[in-house]
């Protein structure tokens, strides 16, 4: 609380001195504790995060394309498993070694 009171007094003093000099008071004086180094660090962190996300998406897309070309279920099938309303993107028939999704019917000898 004491710090805030001191900051308020300092800002008020700046405005009074500006008025005495006939200059308009600064509406947004620099906040105490603002460091250029800290801002640079945040900017760097955000940039690295965005870059990392883009790289992960690129690898996922490459994996899907590779498995689709091989006719095998791709990572897209994971989404299909979670929600059967999501279209399976692979345009080839895929054979799974076990029952992985909700089957509509069973083909059997009869």
């Amino acid at each position, binding site marked *: 609380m004491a710090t805030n009171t001191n900051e308020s007094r300092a800002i008020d003093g700046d405005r009074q001195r500006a008025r005495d000099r006939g200059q308009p008071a600064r509406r947004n004086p620099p906040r105490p504790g603002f460091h250029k180094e800290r801002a640079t660090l945040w900017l760097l962190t955000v940039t690295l995060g965005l870059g990392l996300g883009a790289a992960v998406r690129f690898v996922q897309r490459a994996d899907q394309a590779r498995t689709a070309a091989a006719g095998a279920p791709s990572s897209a099938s994971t989404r299909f498993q979670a929600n059967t309303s999501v279209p399976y993107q692979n345009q080839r028939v895929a054979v799974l070694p076990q*029952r992985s999704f909700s*089957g509509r019917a069973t*083909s059997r*000898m009869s």
Partner: protein
Amino acid sequence: MPSATTPAPDATLPTAVAGLPQRRLRALGTEVVVIGQRAEAAAAELQRLEALLTRFRPSPLTTLNAEGRLSPAPPELIEALRHALAVASDTGGLITPLILPALRWAGYRNAWPAPAEPQPGDPPATADWREVRLDDAAIHLPEGAAVDLGGTAKSWIAVRCLQQLLGEALIDAGGDVISRSPETAAIDVARPRGGEPLQVLLPPGTWGVATSGVLARSWRGGHHLIDPRTGRPAQTRFVQVTAIHPDLRRAEVLAKLALLAPLAPALTGASVLIAFDASGGVWRLGDDGVWGQA
């Protein structure tokens, strides 16, 4: 007695078809499930066609077999027989509708699950399918021949009945499945001796999944898959084959052909062929026509 069912959710089906009208009935010698808008009409059509093509109760087909000729013949019987003869032509006679005398000799005389016992002696010769005469109104069989459409009619009927259904639909004719879906459809493939099934994922569109084998409809000393080259129940490398093809009629033929002639060049036309050997091993036919263990 067939019974109508309400379109209640079914835990074994995904939401995409569980909300559609369903009809379950006993037909084609098996349990049939029809799912889709106008399921009642499709089921009625299925029963109508079965009544024309069955050999197990009085029908135009039994009349044809008894008399060797039929005129006038129902157009549906002519069309189904024409399809069966086309299959015989495509398979070099390996899948022929004239197998009935040999099938009866092997023991399959009455509707399954009637007891079946092979007859003594040698099997009767199978007539040449090329000697069948048919036009738009009449059918003439060669001397001593009799027709069984069991090798081709189930899928032929299912495809016709699918045309009665609107939009997303599915017909499960006792293991021969035809699916029409705007989304990917998952169909289970039962293993011949039970256990965890395999599963196939079908891209959006219309697909047929047909399974044939020698362990079902089998009895002491025989089973229902006759090899016309010997007139006897076929000695097969695999005990079960599943074929997946956009046309269920083709899938049914390919599944049987893979049992009778696993190296037939025509098999490479299937989208996917999955086979099980007697020890439970799973095989797939490669694009190069070579079977490989999966």
